[in-house]
């Protein structure tokens, strides 16, 4: 039962061919991985997922892959491609749609413009953009977790833990809605605790470059920051290494990252892409998702979008004083009850102080 057709490589120009070659190698890898899995139980339809990086990054791509695992368990035929480059996004989406996939998920907001371009050509396919910033037409939807809620919680936690009155954040892709939402809310949350706190934000040019992220985080530590947040992919590990080296706090994006520096990871913002994609797939199958922008948070039914996790069974580093934990948990309850809404604008995500 080989349901994985190889990635097509029929591009015509030279540079695209090089990219296709790379894609073909990676698709072959993907085929290898999926062929080893158990057969699907029921037949829900065909779902494909495209990743900007590799699924072993212990961060963004790894949690997205859990969504595909969940869809497979729910009876979908699944396929995926890793390391899809910006220039290949349109072709990659079109490729799967042409092969009759009912659901094509692009696991990064970057896929939105590509999905908007091909959406009209394939009315039978639903395109879902993970962490996109809006829906389009009848069959292009965006799904995201509420970055403002979790950014705010992290800002509160950071400000309460900081002894220097300086905290930092390392990020990529300045100007992207989900990026400035989290950073802007991080700043607001920190200032709600300590109006005088200094929050410095540094952008690096590649969300996958861990060595560059580590240097950016070290520069924040040199400046005096004693809590470093961030929203990066494979590069998140660089923030955590830097925190370990300077013995300061940081947050990761998966409980796996706690193992890199158990004393320095305060908690992780673990995004529930498995729940979000599963919920979105159910909606799509019922024909109710198209064109929507689904934002999951602590106050939405179906999924909370994300949760704070230090380990599979605890939310915070045991070294954090119980009073601080209680404060953050109380704030989570306020969000869940709809008692606090955070508004951010693009400028809130600016680099520097």
């Amino acid at each position, binding site marked *: 039962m080989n349901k994985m057709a190889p990635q097509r490589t029929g591009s015509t120009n030279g540079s695209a061919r090089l990219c296709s070659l790379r894609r073909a190698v*990676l698709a072959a890898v993907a085929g290898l991985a999926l062929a080893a899995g158990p057969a699907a139980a029921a037949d829900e339809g065909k779902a494909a997922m495209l990743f900007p990086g590799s699924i072993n990054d212990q961060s963004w791509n790894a949690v997205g892959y859990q969504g595909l695992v969940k869809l497979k368990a729910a009876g979908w035929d699944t396929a995926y491609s890793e390391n899809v480059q910006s220039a290949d996004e349109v072709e990659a989406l079109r490729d799967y749609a042409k092969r009759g996939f009912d659901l094509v998920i692009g696991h990064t907001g970057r896929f939105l413009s590509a999905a908007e371009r091909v959406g009209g050509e394939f009315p039978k396919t639903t395109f879902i953009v993970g962490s996109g910033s809006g829906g389009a037409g009848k069959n292009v939807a965006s799904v995201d977790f509420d970055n403002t809620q979790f950014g705010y919680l992290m800002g509160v936690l950071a400000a309460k833990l900081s002894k220097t009155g300086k905290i930092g954040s390392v990020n990529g892709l300045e100007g992207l809605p989900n990026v400035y939402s989290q950073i802007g809310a991080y700043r607001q949350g920190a200032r709600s605790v300590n109006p005088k706190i200094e929050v410095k*934000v540094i952008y690096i040019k590649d969300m996958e470059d861990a060595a560059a992220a580590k240097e950016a985080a070290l520069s924040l530590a040199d400046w005096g920051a004693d809590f470093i947040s961030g929203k990066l992919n494979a590069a998140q*590990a660089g923030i955590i290494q830097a925190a370990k080296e300077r013995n300061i706090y940081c947050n990761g994006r998966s409980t796996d990252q706690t*193992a890199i520096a158990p004393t320095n990871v305060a908690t992780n913002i673990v995004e529930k892409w498995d729940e979000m994609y599963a919920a979105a797939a159910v909606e799509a199958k019922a024909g109710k998702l198209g064109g929507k922008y689904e934002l999951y948070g602590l106050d939405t039914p179906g999924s909370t979008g994300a949760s704070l996790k230090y380990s599979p069974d605890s939310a915070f580093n045991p070294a954090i004083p119980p009073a601080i934990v209680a404060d953050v948990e109380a704030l989570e309850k306020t969000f869940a009850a709809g008692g606090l809404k955070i508004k951010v604008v693009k400028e809130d995500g600016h680099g*520097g102080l």
Partner: protein
Amino acid sequence: MDYAFLVALLAASVRIAAPLILGALGGLISERAGVFAVGIEGMMLAGAFGAAIGAFVSGSPAVGLLLAVVAGSLIASIVAIAVTIFRADQMVTGLAVNILAFGLTSFLLRGLFGGRAPSIRLHIFGAIDIPFLSSLPFVGPILFRQSALTYAAVAIALLLHLALYRTRAGLTLRATGENPEAVFAAGNNPIRIRQLAVIAGGAIAGLGGAVLSLQDVGTFTDGMTNGRGFLALAAVIVGRWTPLGALAACLVFGAASALEVRLQGFNLPVSSYAIQMAPYLLALAVLAGLGRGTRMPQAIGQAYRVG
């Protein structure tokens, strides 16, 4: 700009330069023997991979370093065979092995572990304070509180300088890049020398990759060299094909990167995207300025034919 800021900036410059220095030295050996080192990026990536896998599977960083050297040399030996025996175009061969290394490391990362990439977490090399020197004011924290491979990078640069300009083998290597016919007439085999030079260069570039996986971040991720091999290549040219020149160029590029992240903290009215271009703009500017006065090895890029 206060004292502590300056010390931290310069210490970061040296740290960031370490993988570039090793990549540049590897490229330099290859180019001095007459073979363009476009494949440095791939050799570094293979080295980063070999280092991580070796250390992960064996639990020993020494095995990691050994495998980094082996992996870099293996990619280099493909270049060596293609350009000397089959007289393939050196630029195209270099580009091809870069793509090969990207695909192969991604594939092996999954293939070696039954289809699912493992979570690799390694203990990284910590800073080693050199007794006495590390407590010197200013230079101590900048130069003598670095990690093992950073010291190794500088040591290899100095050794390579001595080898190139103070030994007979170094003279022969340089001559092979200038005039292989003369080397042949003197009773040496230019093809063999080029093969050895490219492979030795791959070994050193592989160590450069190991800096990233074993010393900086403690894991391997796809494409983690992220263009550093090309920056190293620019450093070879800026450094006028000399080890000490390349060392200096890498330190300047390192300083530009270290300054770039710190500049963002000054709230300049410039987008972070523009500031992030700084190291590359600097490389371009220096290349345009210095590049004109330089003379590359005379016979570089030309396949040597016996007779």
